[in-house]
């Protein structure tokens, strides 16, 4: 469990983290979202004990990270940004080194190294110099290092950065599995990744938390939440008729397929679900369509709104729901 309270970090004049408070429980996979320079990495570096905070406290497993620095670091596995490792060592040598510094010796050390090599599928390259490995393998070597001591807490800064789609998929599966009993914080730029692995999302902008909720909460903040998307060849004037359907607040039309068809975004009045009404309307009027579905909400749009700061009102409304 991690408890962060009123965390502030200043670098000279610049305030990187400006009063962040949250806590994460075992079983939670928390995704840190936010534009570059928002303070995600800085927050992670403070939790892992790499840099001290300017103000505020962090407790890991109930212990303060400054007073019990060594003890809290034992509980944390950390995968830093860009997955650094000693390039002149082989993967096995590097992992043995990390295991030794973590206090494992002899057979215990070897057992732990074997275990993480298997877990991260490094068998084929374990005796190669890390410098000669591909980006994907280097990422895994550093990830393996974070798992050596089977930590209750995992902190990962952009864990899938630079991986190919297959490797990303594998990595996400591993994270999901570990999320069952560990406390995990990861940062990402990829919204789809957050939706795939996280059960909680915190959006940070300019050093402050702007949204804290589940991925569904985030989607629900979108103006597309429960909006119906309709694609059809049917002729003009449809937008006006759709506006007449019960519960519809607004309709936007965009030409698609190079003008061969139209896509309508049909927005509901507050708190209403309009898919049944819209489909009934289409059936009653014998309108043919190629696509009709209710949207969950567009997370990328919410992300832009909350991080660009136009829509603090939106954020508050989202939290009310």
């Amino acid at each position, binding site marked *: 469990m991690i408890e962060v309270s009123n965390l502030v970090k200043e*670098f000279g004049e610049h305030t990187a983290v400006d009063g962040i408070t949250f806590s994460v429980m075992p079983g939670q996979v928390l995704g840190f979202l936010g534009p570059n320079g928002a303070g995600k990495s*800085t927050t992670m*570096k403070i939790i*892992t*004990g*790499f*840099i*001290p905070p300017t103000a505020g406290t962090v407790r890991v497993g109930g212990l303060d990270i400054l007073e019990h*620095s*060594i*003890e809290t*670091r*034992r509980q*944390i596995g*950390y995968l*830093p*940004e*860009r997955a*650094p*490792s*000693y*390039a*002149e*060592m082989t993967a096995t*040598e590097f992992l043995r*080194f*990390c295991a*030794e*510094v*973590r*206090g494992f*010796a002899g057979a215990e050390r070897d057992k732990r190294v074997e275990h993480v090599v298997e877990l991260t599928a490094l068998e084929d390259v374990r005796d190669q*110099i890390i410098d000669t490995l591909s980006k994907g393998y280097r990422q895994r070597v*550093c990830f393996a*290092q974070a798992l050596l001591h089977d930590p209750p807490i995992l902190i990962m800064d952009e864990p899938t950065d630079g991986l190919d789609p297959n490797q990303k998929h594998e990595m996400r599966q591993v994270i999901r599995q570990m999320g069952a009993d560990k406390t995990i914080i990861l940062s990402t730029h990829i919204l789809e990744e957050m939706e795939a692995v996280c059960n909680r999302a915190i959006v940070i902008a300019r050093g402050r938390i702007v949204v804290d909720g589940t991925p569904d909460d985030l989607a629900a903040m979108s103006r597309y939440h429960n909006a119906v998307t309709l694609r059809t060849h049917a002729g003009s004037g449809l937008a006006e008729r759709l506006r007449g359907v019960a519960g519809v607040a607004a309709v936007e039309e965009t030409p698609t397929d190079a003008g061969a068809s139209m896509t309508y975004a049909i927005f509901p009045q507050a708190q209403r679900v309009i898919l049944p009404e819209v489909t009934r309307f289409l059936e009653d009027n014998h309108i043919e369509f190629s696509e009709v579905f209710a949207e969950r909400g567009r997370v990328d749009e919410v992300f832009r709104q909350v991080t660009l700061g136009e829509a603090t009102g939106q954020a508050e409304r989202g939290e009310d729901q």
Partner: protein
Amino acid sequence: MKPMISIIKRELLGYFRSPVAYVFIIIFLVSTAGTTWYVGNFYDSNEASLAIFFFFHPWLYLILIPAVGMRLWAEDRRQGTIEILLTLPVNLVTAVVAKFIAAWLFIGVALALTFPMVLTTYYLGAPDGGVILTGYLGSFLMAGAYLSISCFTSSLTKNQVVSFITSFIICLVLVLLGWGVLTRTLQDIFPIWISDLIAQFSFTTHFNGIRRGLVEFRDVIYFLSVIGFMLLANVLVLETKKAS
């Protein structure tokens, strides 16, 4: 203690995996032997001692030691491994001391490889073994003091060249403060106790006795306190500057 040994082992492995280590050792041997024979005219001195050999060490170390020390933290910072090392459950002092010891041992290896000089002296005459031994120990101790300064400058920057130059300049000042030509000039300007005080801060002053086989307690204390002070500064810099 265990983590410290692991870090020392890893650092040494890092040195010997890189071709730079072998290039360094070769340059070290060539320059120490070269200055002894060609600049110091060892053969013509008609003296079966390594006084000439050690005489050049404070000057050679100006270049050689910062070359070893410059990468110490700068490289970890550049590669990002500093973030791995300093989030492992070891305290900062352990990490700083371990890295220092590893580099010091590496320099010790280079210094030990100058043993043909000793053999040559024994072949040519009957040198005083004790003097040679104290010369080596003194040189090693002084190398540690240079190295601790390089460790410190290395922790200040990501850029190895900046680290090298800063370290070179600090060491140069510490060598020059005790350089005969300068101390004589200072004696003309200042009262003797001031020029003596200034000279007391110099590597040269404290090495001169040791290289002649005269081990004085205060010289040993001087080098050890330079090492201790610089390593402490190194810890403090890392404590405040880790992030950048």
